[in-house]
């Protein structure tokens, strides 16, 4: 049973609505809710915490229906992108806010605050005014304030988005460490794929108020549903084809634009399928040698685009267009330029079958 389960949730806010959203977060998971601005991620998060009353659907915590519970009963901690530290309280009082209840001794509260402040490297900031803190310090204070109450789930709403690149990287490392130490389940709303790669054990992709796909990061990145999910995870190589291998074959053979491709995924003879290959999984070679890769596609280099330490190479073969990403040094050793003939090589196990059964069929035109 999932720790958090959202079932058929619809929220109507007039100008925006969530439609029939369902997903779950298992206990101990780090789930990233991935989507662009305006996708409905924050509305979903705030509905889970109890800020909005859904039009229909349910929110379950440990199997208990909490849809109509007020936020204070749900035991969920939240950290917003803009920290929301109480400006009239110093760092200590901000962190202690949730445990300052009648009947609790000052010593006990102070011990708890000091312990969590040490874990988050802000022990020397406790007497400071929150307005004097840097972005990273404010974010850690906000995190400490949410974690001190030991929430069932920690909700992060674009928690690292306002930070500079280096601080964001440090926050990710710290978040991974703290999550492990405190054994907390996290639901992290983000538009940044790096957050997913660095932290997530589960991913859910949301767009225009609808949940498009959820699963492990590998499932989402290797087998993204065509259209929005494929775009947001940077899956550029989606190939539509027809299965031509016999039912008992070890590898599935798919005919796409006159080229035969091999996949290790189970596929059914005679069916139409969509396959995905990550650009990073393609090896570019000048000529064919003895290689174990089952897929060896002769292409003409159509475009070369340098992006920092990487080079994005687009190759065309008949109606098929594939993108490979190689390192700059790898590209220089190839000495390939637009118009040259190369081979795109990739393993059958890297060519993944994409499930298009439930998703937006109208998005499939992006597929080559």
């Amino acid at each position, binding site marked *: 049973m999932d720790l958090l389960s959202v079932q058929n949730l619809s929220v109507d806010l007039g100008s925006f609505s969530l439609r029939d959203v369902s997903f779950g977060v298992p206990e101990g998971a780090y789930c990233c809710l991935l989507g662009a601005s305006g996708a409905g991620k924050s509305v979903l998060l705030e509905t889970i915490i109890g800020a909005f009353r859904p039009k229909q659907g349910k929110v379950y915590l440990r199997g208990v229906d909490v849809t109509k519970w*007020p936020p204070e009963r749900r035991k969920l901690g939240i950290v917003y992108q803009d920290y929301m530290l109480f400006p009239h309280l110093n760092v200590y009082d901000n962190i202690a806010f*949730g445990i300052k*209840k009648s009947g609790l001794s000052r010593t006990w509260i102070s011990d708890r605050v000091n312990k969590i402040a040490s874990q988050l490297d802000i022990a020397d900031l406790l007497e400071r005014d929150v307005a004097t803190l840097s972005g990273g310090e404010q974010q850690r204070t906000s995190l400490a304030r*949410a974690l001190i109450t030991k929430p069932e789930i920690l909700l992060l709403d674009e928690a690292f988005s306002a930070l500079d690149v280096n601080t964001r990287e440090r926050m990710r490392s710290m978040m991974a460490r703290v999550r492990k130490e405190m054994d907390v389940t996290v639901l992290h709303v983000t538009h940044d794929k790096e957050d997913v790669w660095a932290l997530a054990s589960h991913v859910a992709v949301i767009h225009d108020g609808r949940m498009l796909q959820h699963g492990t990061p590998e499932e989402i990145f290797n087998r993204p549903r065509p259209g929005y999910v494929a775009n947001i995870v940077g899956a550029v190589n989606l190939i539509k084809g027809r299965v031509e291998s016999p039912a008992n074959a070890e590898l599935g053979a798919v005919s796409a634009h006159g080229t035969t491709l091999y996949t290790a995924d189970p596929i059914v003879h005679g069916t139409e399928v969509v396959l995905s290959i990550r650009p990073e999984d393609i090896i570019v070679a000048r000529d064919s040698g003895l290689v174990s890769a089952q897929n060896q596609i002769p292409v003409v280099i159509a475009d070369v685009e340098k992006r920092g330490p990487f080079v994005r190479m687009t190759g065309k073969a008949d109606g098929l267009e594939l993108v490979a990403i190689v390192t700059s040094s790898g590209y220089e050793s190839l000495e390939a330029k637009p118009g040259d003939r190369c081979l795109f090589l990739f393993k059958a196990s890297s060519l993944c079958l994409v499930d298009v059964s439930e998703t937006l069929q109208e998005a499939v035109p992006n597929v080559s």
Partner: protein
Amino acid sequence: MKNNIFKATIGGVTVIFTGLLIWSILSLMLMPETSEFIESTFSEEMLYSIRLSLLTSIVSVAFVMLLAISIGYVLARFSFPGQHLLRTIVDLPMAFPELVLGLCLLLLFGHGAFGQWLKSMGIEVVFSKYSIVIAQIFTAAPYAIRVVYGTFRGISPRYEMVARSLGCGLLESFLRVSLPMARGGLFAGTVIAFARCMGCFGTVLILAGGTRMYTETLPITLYLNISYGNLAMAMSSGIILIFISLGAIIVFEILNQEVVL
């Protein structure tokens, strides 16, 4: 060239207007003899008037701020049908001439069903000292509500959501987060309400009557004495009102809070 003409025009208008304003205030301040001012200020009538004005204003401001916090918070935080209508209704007294507001209140508390019901309960409002407080509340409340509403609007509701996620109920999150965060706006609202209560004339005149040494607040003192031709007393009460208003503005400026009006 055109830029300079534009700057000179708007600068000139500003200088002329503020100059005339300062001149008019100084005319009042410099007109009475010092001895006349002191004598008038310490006269029995003036001391009564100052005491009554301060007392009623303090009581009124307490009620006004309770109203302003409640209504300002409701308008800023909750969505409900008729929200805009409520805001317009609350603002209405600001657009009314004070005399008209006083007349409305006179009908409500005097001859109307509500007034008759109060009378049957033994509460006589009209032409009593209570009516000064009522007149001041209705006159000052819209200004304070505007300030407090703007302040609450300026505080992200997410602060309260954080507090509630940390175990606070609606009331506790209001008391521990929203109210302390709004303290600048609340103080500004209090200062404005106090200034409005002290200077409230038309509404008090109609609802409480301008009875000497009974319902005589500072503006009523000014009015009564100018009617009798006692210029020294009139000017002294005017100067005292100016000092009180100046004090309120100075306190307001010192606070230097950004309040959405």
